[in-house]
C-alpha cells in the first residue's frame, strides 16, 4: 500500500530539494506532477484539486520562494497538508497519532451499525470488530446480520461469530431488517450485552429502496457508531458513495478494508476529506485479527517515506 504514490512523490520532492532557488513556475510544475501522482493513486479528483490549490497558494508565497531552503519548505507544506487530509491535523479530534477510537462508553447496549457498498467487507469487518471488542475492550458483544438479500449472508456472519467467539443473533428465516434490528436490541438487553454490532446488506447509494431501509434501521436502532466500510481499492466513485451515505445516515467513521493490497491508497486519502469523518480502522487481511487502528500521522509518514 502507498508504495507507488510514495515513490512518485519522493522523486518530485528530491528534484525540488535539489534546486537552490525556486521560481513560481518550478512550484507549479512540481504540483502538476503531484496532481498526476495523486490521481494515479485514485485520490478523488475534487480532493486532489483542492489539495493542489491549497499547497500551491501557500508554496508560491514570497516567504517560501525567498527563503534559504525553498524546496524543503514546499515539501513541508505538502507534508502538512497531507497529514491534515488524512485527519491528523493539529485540530483533528484524535489522540497522539490522530487515531480516533470507537465510542463505547454510551449507555449499553451500544449499537454499532455497519454500512457500505456490496462486497466492501462489512460482514468480515463486523466480526473483526466483535472480536476486538471482546478481547481488547473486555466487553460482551453480540452481532446480528440484517442482510436478507445476499445468499447465505446470515450464515456467513454466524460462521464468523463462532470463529471470533462472539454470539450472533439466531437466524429467523424471512424476518425483515428493521424487525431483526428490534429483536437484536431486545435480546441484547435481556442478556446484558454491552455492544451490539449490526451488519447490513451491501447497497448501492443510488438504490432508493435499500437506502430507505438503511435509514429505517438507523432510526430504530439509534446507533452510537455508524461506520462506512469502504474498499481501499475504490476509484473515483468514492466521492459519490461517501456523500450519498453520509446524506442518509449519521456516519461516525470509516473502516478502510483491503489495505493489505497493493492499491495506491487514494481512497484512504480521499475518505476523510469527503466524509469529514475519521478513518477509524484499516482491514489488512481476511483473518479476524487483521484489523488495525488507523493512525493518520503514521500513514502520512509512510506515504512521504519518512
Amino acid at each position, binding site marked *: 500500500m502507498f508504495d507507488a504514490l510514495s515513490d512518485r512523490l519522493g522523486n518530485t520532492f528530491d528534484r525540488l530539494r535539489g534546486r537552490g532557488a525556486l521560481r513560481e513556475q518550478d512550484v507549479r510544475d512540481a504540483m502538476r506532477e503531484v496532481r498526476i501522482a495523486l490521481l494515479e493513486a485514485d485520490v478523488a479528483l475534487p480532493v486532489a484539486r483542492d489539495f493542489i490549490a491549497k499547497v500551491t497558494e501557500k508554496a508560491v508565497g514570497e516567504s517560501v520562494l525567498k527563503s534559504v531552503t525553498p524546496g524543503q519548505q514546499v515539501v513541508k507544506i505538502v507534508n502538512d497538508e497531507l497529514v491534515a487530509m488524512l485527519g491528523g491535523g493539529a485540530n483533528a479530534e484524535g489522540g497522539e497519532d490522530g487515531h480516533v477510537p470507537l465510542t463505547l462508553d454510551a449507555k449499553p447496549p451500544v449499537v454499532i451499525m455497519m454500512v457500505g457498498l456490496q*462486497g466492501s467487507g462489512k460482514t468480515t469487518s463486523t466480526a473483526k470488530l466483535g472480536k476486538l471488542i471482546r478481547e481488547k475492550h473486555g466487553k460482551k458483544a453480540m452481532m446480528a446480520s440484517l442482510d436478507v438479500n445476499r445468499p447465505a449472508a446470515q*450464515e456467513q456472519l454466524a460462521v464468523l461469530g463462532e470463529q471470533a467467539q462472539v454470539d450472533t443473533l439466531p437466524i429467523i428465516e424471512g424476518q425483515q431488517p428493521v424487525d431483526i434490528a428490534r429483536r437484536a436490541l431486545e435480546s441484547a438487553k435481556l442478556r446484558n450485552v454491552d455492544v451490539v454490532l449490526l451488519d447490513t446488506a451491501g447497497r448501492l447509494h443510488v438504490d432508493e429502496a435499500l437506502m430507505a431501509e438503511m435509514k429505517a434501521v438507523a432510526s430504530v436502532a439509534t446507533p452510537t457508531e455508524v461506520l462506512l466500510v469502504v474498499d481501499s481499492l475504490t476509484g473515483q466513485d468514492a466521492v459519490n458513495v461517501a456523500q450519498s451515505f453520509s446524506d442518509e445516515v449519521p456516519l461516525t467513521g470509516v473502516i478502510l478494508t483491503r489495505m493489505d493490497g497493493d492499491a495506491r491508497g487514494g481512497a484512504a486519502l480521499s475518505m476523510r476529506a469527503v466524509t469529514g469523518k475519521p478513518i477509524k480502522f484499516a482491514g489488512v487481511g481476511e483473518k479476524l485479527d487483521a484489523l488495525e487502528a488507523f493512525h493518520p500521522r503514521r500513514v502520512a509518514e509512510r506515504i512521504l517515506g519518512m
Partner: protein
Amino acid sequence: VGNTRLDDATLDEIEDALIMSDLGPEAAGRVREALREQRFGAEITERQLREAVAEEIAAILRPVAKPLEVTAFPRPQVILVIGVNGSGKTTTIAKLAHLFMEDDYEVMLAAGDTFRAAAIGQLQTWADRVGVPLVRGPEGGDPASIVFDAVKRGTDEGTDALIVDTAGRLQNKRELMDELAKIRKVLGRLNPEAPHDVVLVLDATNGQNALSQIDVFQEVAGVTGLIMTKLDGTARGGILVAAAQKYGLPIHAIGVGEQLDDLRPFDPDLVARVIAGVA
C-alpha cells in the same frame, strides 16, 4: 446548450470528466490528445463534443467486445472464474449459469472457494435457484481436489459447461496466487484444453488498481477475458478503456445488479456513452 470552442480549457474539462470516470490520467490524456488533434479550435456544441468523446472511446472498446460462448468439444467447457475479494465472482457465476441454461446448455458448478465463511452455502443457494448441480467438498478443504473431481464428473456426464468458483485473493498475495496457479494446472489434468476460459471479474467501483489486477492475474493464471460488475451504480468503468489499450483482453459481459438476469452483453458503444456522459 450553447456552442463551445474546443480550446484548452474545454479539453481540461473533458480530461477531468474522464478521470472521474476512472480512465486514469494516462488514458484520459490520450483521449484528450486525440480530440485535440482532430478538432482543436472547432466550434462545437457540448452535445457534439460528448459524442466525439464517446466515439473516441467506443473505437477503443469495440475490438475487445466478445461474448463468452460455449463451444468446447470434447465437453465440458471449463470456465475458471477469478478475481480479488468481493468483486462479484460467485454472483457472476450464477448469472452465467442462468444465461447458459436459457440457451439450453447443461451447466455444472464447482465450489472452489472453500476458504471464505459460507462461500459454499452461497454458491449452493445460487445453484439451487438456477437448477444446476454443484460439486462441493468440505469447508476448509483443498480446492484443487474439488475442481479435479468436478472436471471428472463434468466429463463423465458430458456437461456442456463447468464453471469453477474460486476464493477472492488480492494479487499481491504470493501464496494465494500460487494456489490459483495450482488450481489452474489441476483443471488441465484430465483435459489439457481446460480451463478453456479464465475469466477475471473486475469491480467497477475499483480504480486504477484494476490494471494491476489484470497484470498479475494474467501472468499467474492466464486470463482470457474480463467481466465487469457493479455497473448499476455511479461508477462508470473507465478502467476498461485503459485495459483495452494496454492488454486488449476480450470483455465478455457486464454486471448490472444482484439478480440472476442482471448480466448484460458488453456493448462498447453504450459503455462508451456512459463514460462520456451521454447515456
